[in-house]
């Protein structure tokens, strides 16, 4: 029964009503978790409720992925799992074993002929000045890579709708859309 994975015995607090003893909170044990992150295997020891986002930031020193809301509402934590964009704050690390995770740190230098070169989406964000404070940017860039993999964009309106899962408090949206149009070679925003 490998498919039944009991993830956690959530904090079981045992209260002894008549004894003076303090309640005993028994935490479930940490367990080994192996994740494939940016092409490299990472062996971690985690409490079972650790989110993928916390595993990346707190246990792998991959702080490029940001925590904005921690509730699926902002997109700052966007990473790619098997090429699909997801919110790392709403999944548990143990649920991602056996999958291939790509974070912002893993995008550059993937082309063996040009090691260290930025990913085209990263370059387009720089070219178009598509950020201000930069906090949402790793999420925006990973989300854009996911968007390109999905292949559903035909128009500028599609970009706006399909990037709506990434909030930018600085309001850099116009330049973000420009950068994405550039990568996708949509020219609808350019003067004729």
């Amino acid at each position: 029964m490998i498919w039944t994975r009991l993830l956690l015995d959530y904090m079981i607090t045992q209260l002894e009503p008549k004894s003076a003893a303090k309640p005993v909170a028994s935490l479930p044990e940490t367990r080994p978790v192996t994740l494939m992150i940016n092409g490299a295997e990472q062996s971690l020891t985690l409490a079972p409720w650790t989110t993928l986002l916390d595993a990346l930031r707190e246990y792998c020193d991959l702080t490029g992925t940001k925590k904005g809301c921690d509730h699926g509402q902002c997109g700052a934590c966007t990473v790619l799992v098997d090429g699909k964009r997801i919110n790392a704050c709403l999944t548990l690390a143990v649920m991602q074993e056996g999958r291939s995770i790509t974070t912002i740190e893993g995008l550059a230098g993937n082309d063996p002929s040009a090691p260290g070169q930025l990913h085209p989406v990263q370059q387009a964000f720089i070219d178009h000045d598509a950020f201000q404070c930069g906090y949402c940017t790793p999420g925006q860039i990973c989300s854009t890579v996911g968007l390109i993999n999905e292949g559903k964009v035909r128009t500028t309106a599609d970009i706006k709708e399909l990037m709506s899962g990434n909030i930018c408090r600085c309001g850099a949206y116009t330049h973000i859309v420009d950068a994405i149009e550039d990568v996708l070679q949509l020219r609808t925003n350019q003067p004729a």
Partner: protein
Amino acid sequence: MEAVGELTTEKSLDSAGAKFIAGGTNLIDLMKENVERPGRLVDINHLPLNTIEEIEDGGLRLDALVSNADTAYHPLVEQRYPLLSQTILAGASPQLRNMATNGGNLFQRTRCYYFYDTAMPCNKREPGQNAGPSGCGAIGGYNRIHAILGTTEGTEDGQSQCIATYPSDMAVALAALEAVIRVTGPNGERTIPIGEFHRLPGQEPQRDNTLEPGEIVTAIDLPAPRFVDNHMYLKLRDRASYAFALVSVAVGLEMEGDVVKDVRIALGGVAHKPWRKPEAEALLVGKTATKENFRPVADSLLEGAVGYGHNTFKIELAHRAIIRALGQAAKLEPTA
């Protein structure tokens, strides 16, 4: 389905508060808020419930673990059930739709602010056991997103216990398409029509649906395709994207020229379940598709609607939305 049967009789599920986890997008969120405190989590992502397949009567079976995104973009769903594609894509964000599963979507809990706030009374989160109900923060509180229909039905004294809405978009289209939910549990398999899957709060607001303990949804069956040419999901919300519906309308029309041969209408954002009323739909059958003929349908659908203050605007909003969505489905007016 052997593996599924095995799971539902699995011992560890007996422990109170064991929960399945699928996409995690609702459960993990609620665990972070201390609203859900499962004693155990069972990851069901490895069950073989991940395909979309044609079934005998010309319908389509959407397995429970297929993501909302893969469902909305599946060629057979796009071609034969465009209403469902359109509806799923109106919900959440691309990232969330990649994670959210068809099964999990059916179980997503209300977005009522007081349900999320453990410092507030809430009959859904903490149902009164013997001592009577614990109260409802929304009745008499800020209730802009709350229900206008079915809030007092089935209550003992005609006083509502809970005015929460069920927030799913997908289920509103499923109601219009008359989908059937397939379930496996300790007592074997059964099917539940979507209209009977979710329930009104009545005296038990803690129960969102009619599932029994230990039961698992394995698939959603769509009957043979209808409404391919004339359909609309109109979702009204505070932002143009990435926001829950204040009011939504799913419409499927079968037309012969200008005349409506058959119609299904389901409302979202107005009740504890997708809201349908066959008598209201019947008013339109055999009539020409005109605004004048849509109005009595909207009147009937919203009969008995009650506002609680901040949400009273929803009654008029829903009325207009029904008329507009019918017009859009009949192609009397543009959809954008």
